[in-house]
């Protein structure tokens, strides 16, 4: 049985929920040597900055158990080169493109949004809030709801109304729901989580930090439980807001886990480094899983775990029936193992 894998990022329809994660697929060209980029839901670019950036010194990466620390520092050619060479290349091929942007001031994000407004081929804009705020002594925007909201609303105000603005959140905060809510109040149409939490490792041979930048962002399966928790909490608090779940997805099962927590789109990052074909495999596995569990539509699985609290017996409690107002619950999922739960 084939499953309807379509999903919505705000009002934009994607053919399926699997996208690349920002910074893990460059601008798509390298990946396109391996497969047709139109086969994934969308290509999320690396975070584009105003000026060209050389990034951080090397070593920029260190492997950790089931994870990877990186401190690349947003190396890239800047918005001019992106608009000249990279975006047209994607637009020409009709690739659904989410452009990630990064800046050091609210104005810089605004300037990036202004440059993107008239560029053809922008499906959505993702605001990478894990950038140091120059005007706040380098405090990362994502750690401060007010600063994050200010960035989001300046981008939202400048982007065309039909281009959704996604706020990308970091897990290194006391209250992810508060930051998420501030971003939504600032005009975010969707939320993406999680960016990498900050970690560190020390080389016990050289007796020095393994990364030249000392600390770096931790990604890979090691952070998946953090991503699941963040998606879960935000979905529970803001059930109407579309969530892009990102963090440690290696398999269709992992994507399914984030979807059950409340994600309607799933980003794949570090797994790409291991296997450039991984998005296609994850998509296939996810579809098989949904089909095996009797789902006809991906949308029916989004956030479903919220309605199945832990403990077998509670699945039959009438007070935990899906909220009919929540997105994705228009139709009860089909299939025996769900019918059995008295939906």
């Amino acid at each position, binding site marked *: 049985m084939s499953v309807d894998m379509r999903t919505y990022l705000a009002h934009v329809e994607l053919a399926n929920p699997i996208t690349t994660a920002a910074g893990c697929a*460059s601008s798509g060209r390298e990946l396109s040597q391996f497969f047709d980029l139109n086969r994934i839901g969308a290509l999320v670019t690396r975070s584009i900055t105003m000026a060209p950036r050389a990034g951080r010194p090397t070593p*920029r990466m260190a492997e950790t158990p089931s994870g990877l620390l990186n401190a690349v520092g947003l190396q890239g050619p800047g918005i001019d080169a992106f608009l000249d060479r990279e975006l047209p290349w994607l637009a020409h091929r009709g690739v659904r493109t989410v452009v990630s942007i990064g800046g050091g001031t609210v104005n810089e994000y605004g300037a990036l949004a202004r440059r993107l407004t008239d560029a053809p081929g922008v499906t959505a804009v993702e605001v990478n809030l894990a950038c140091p705020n120059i005007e706040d002594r380098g405090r990362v925007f994502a750690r401060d709801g007010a600063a994050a909201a200010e960035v989001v609303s300046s981008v939202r105000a400048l982007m065309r109304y039909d281009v959704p603005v996604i706020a990308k959140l970091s897990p290194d905060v006391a209250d992810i729901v508060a930051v998420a809510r501030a971003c939504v109040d600032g005009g975010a149409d969707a939320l993406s989580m999680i960016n990498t939490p900050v970690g560190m490792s020390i080389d016990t041979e050289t007796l020095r930090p393994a990364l030249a930048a000392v600390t770096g962002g931790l990604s890979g399966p090691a952070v998946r439980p953090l991503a699941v928790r963040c998606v879960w909490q935000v979905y529970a608090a803001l059930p109407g807001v579309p969530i892009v779940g990102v963090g440690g997805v290696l398999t269709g099962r992992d994507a399914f886990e984030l979807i059950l927590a409340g994600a309607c789109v799933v980003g794949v990052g*570090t797994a790409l480094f291991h296997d450039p074909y991984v998005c296609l495999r994850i998509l296939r596995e996810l579809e098989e899983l949904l089909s095996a569990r009797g789902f006809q539509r991906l949308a029916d699985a989004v956030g479903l775990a919220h309605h199945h609290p832990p403990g077998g017996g509670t699945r039959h409690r009438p007070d935990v029936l899906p909220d009919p107002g929540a997105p994705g619950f228009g139709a009860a999922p089909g299939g025996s193992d769900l019918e059995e739960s008295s939906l």
Partner: protein
Amino acid sequence: MLTTRRVDAYHALTLVAPGIAEHLRPGHFVAVAVGGPRSSMLTRRSFSVHDVKPDYGGTVELVFTVRGPGTSWLADRRARDTLDVVGPLGRPFPLPRDPVNCVLVGGDYGSATLFGLADALQRRGCRVDFVIGAESAERVFGALRARRMGETTTLTTEDGSLGMRGRVTDVLPGVIADVRADVVYACGPMETLRGVTAVAIEFDIPVQVSVEEAMACGFGVCMTCVLPVIGEDGITRMVRACVEGPVFRGERVRFEDVGTIPFDAAGAPGAPSASTSPASPGGGGGPRNVS
């Protein structure tokens, strides 16, 4: 995987990989997944290719030294185990159009990649001379083969246990002068490449070096493998060793600045604005996935 054997201080693995063997050119590398399917080691390990043979539809041989958990897992593989390998990756060694005199310099396992190159050069009528060195005799790789293939072969060890006592860069000027070398090719540790490049610059002859940088993806998307390289236009950029390299013209690599962002590099904090190079997909034949 076909066979595994010890060669002095190194391990050699022969893989049946027709897709890779068919498209591989000297200087290409491959990326191997380590730790099995449920591995906690997420990044592939990169290795240059020592030998390509037509047997079994096409085999490639890797030569490696155990450094950490990934290579030690690899060292425990046995014949008939399956490996997950992606390749060929990177830009291979450019070959001269004319039959010129080439000196091939290898440090440690870096010499492994030189024999395929020597073969390609000799088929073009080039003269090939080898300079191979390491810290001690058991870390000198391929001395016998070099002696068979090269017009001359000069070996060096730092402890004097084989060949001349010293480093490859100590003997290189003499070899270049003796054989009237037109071009130098080198693969080995960064320090060796830096020294070899300095010698070649002194003789005013071109030098091609194959560098080694820590790589997370091997195909150009992660931006972890960068080093400062001077472009055609004289501008230094942080370029990716995996797709723009691993082979570079030695005099273009700013060896003394590896591990830093030179202040005058494109996009360096406070640097004059200059656009970085266009994202170019990996060279050579297109990567293939095999088991």
